[in-house]
């Protein structure tokens, strides 16, 4: 194990970095998409429940099934991997963003409008900051989930640590096959913890002290 790691640590680090950067970039993209969708939905009851249903049903779809479906139009490569990861990353954030935005006290919004804030300004200065902790909680759920999904996405030759797992599987019983899988799994777990900690810290730094728990 240690020799396996010592011999390949540069490759492992680079795969880890690929994995991490795939997840982080997809997470950022997903957050933007989710907040946009939530902003469109949260003030209508019908659209809110639509968003919630889409999120709930989307999350029941197995990631591997979606990957399979995406191979046909997009072939193998980075594109289907990114689509799958973003798709699943959007769902928890969307759900939380709708809940968070809808949960902002109506009287607070009225007060903001009352002192002359525009609709957009109210959204960015009042509603979004107040809903931010809830949105961030959704991002943490997404982050952890997509770390694993990104590993499955290696099946379509996406970048990252999943390739260590699949190569170990294909060489089962062969030299270093177990080490390869173990490295893949452990590295993903470590990356997930790092990303989670990073999101926690970002949460501390970006959440108004007035609403910190």
């Amino acid at each position, binding site marked *: 194990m240690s020799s396996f790691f010592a011999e390949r640590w540069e490759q492992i680090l680079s795969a880890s970095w690929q994995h991490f950067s795939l997840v982080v970039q997809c997470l950022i993209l997903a957050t933007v998409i989710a907040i946009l969708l939530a902003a469109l939905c949260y003030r209508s009851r019908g659209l809110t429940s639509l968003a919630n249903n889409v999120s709930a049903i989307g999350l029941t779809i197995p990631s591997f*099934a979606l990957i399979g*479906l995406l191979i046909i139009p997009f072939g193998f490569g980075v594109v289907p991997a990114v689509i799958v990861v973003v798709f699943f990353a959007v769902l928890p954030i969307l759900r939380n963003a709708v809940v968070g935005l809808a949960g902002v006290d109506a009287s607070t919004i009225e007060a903001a409008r009352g002192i002359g804030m525009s609709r957009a300004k109210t959204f960015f200065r009042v509603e979004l900051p107040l809903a931010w902790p809830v949105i961030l909680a959704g991002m943490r759920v997404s982050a952890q989930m997509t770390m694993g999904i990104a590993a499955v996405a290696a099946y379509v030759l996406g970048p990252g640590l999943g390739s260590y797992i699949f190569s170990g599987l294909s060489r089962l019983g062969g030299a270093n096959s177990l080490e390869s899988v173990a490295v893949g799994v452990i590295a993903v777990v470590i990356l997930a913890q790092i990303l989670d900690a990073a999101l926690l810290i970002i949460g501390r730094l970006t959440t108004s002290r007035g609403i910190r728990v």
Partner: protein
Amino acid sequence: MSTASDSAALDTGRRQWTGLIVQPIVILLALGAVALWISNADLTDTERVTLSVSYLWGLTLEHLKLTVVAAVIVLVLAIPLGILLTRGPFRRYTTPVMAIANIGQSAPAIGLVVLFAFWLGFGFEATVVALILYAFLPVLGNTIVGLRGVDGRLIEAGRGMGMSAAAVLFKIELPLALPVMLAGIRTALVLLVGTATLGAFIDGGGLGLLITTGVNLALDKVLITGSLLVALLALTIDWIARLFEQVARPRGL
């Protein structure tokens, strides 16, 4: 109790039921569409064998077997553990156990499946064990959260009436925690259906086989059918679990 909150509660209740009726209809329609498409498609011999009703049905049953066996074992292990971790002296282990479970949950499912194949050999067993590990946390976590969420004053009221600790657990705590626990069980079931797909990589059987076969042999129709069937199966299980949640939820909550 204001009438406004009553009607709001009634309203959400009604919407839940509407969702419960719409979901199976959509699933059936989608299933019909898949069937129609396969029966009209131009199939090669291999595809015809792979997409025969009996073969698909067999794979579905395998998939369900993986899911159900893992689910039963998870329930039998995780719920008692959750109860134990909310009892007096064991409460201090809750945080470390949950922390470990949370870290474990971030392990990629595909990795777990493969690792257990190394240990237990290819097949059903390794898949089930990996599935159990993967679905354990939602059930355990929600059992703990649900039990902790029970209003302490109600527990005290029960004790004050002379209920034994066991009576308080079974008559007050578990019924009141049930909605949260059921939500966790549903999450676990959906995870299980999805993750069981990965069993195809280690000869665990199930509908995932259609996807791997489709990819390996470049059979697009098999690939699409497999993906859709897995998704529909997941939605069906989700629907059954929702239905059960709705029915089993104690009235009065």
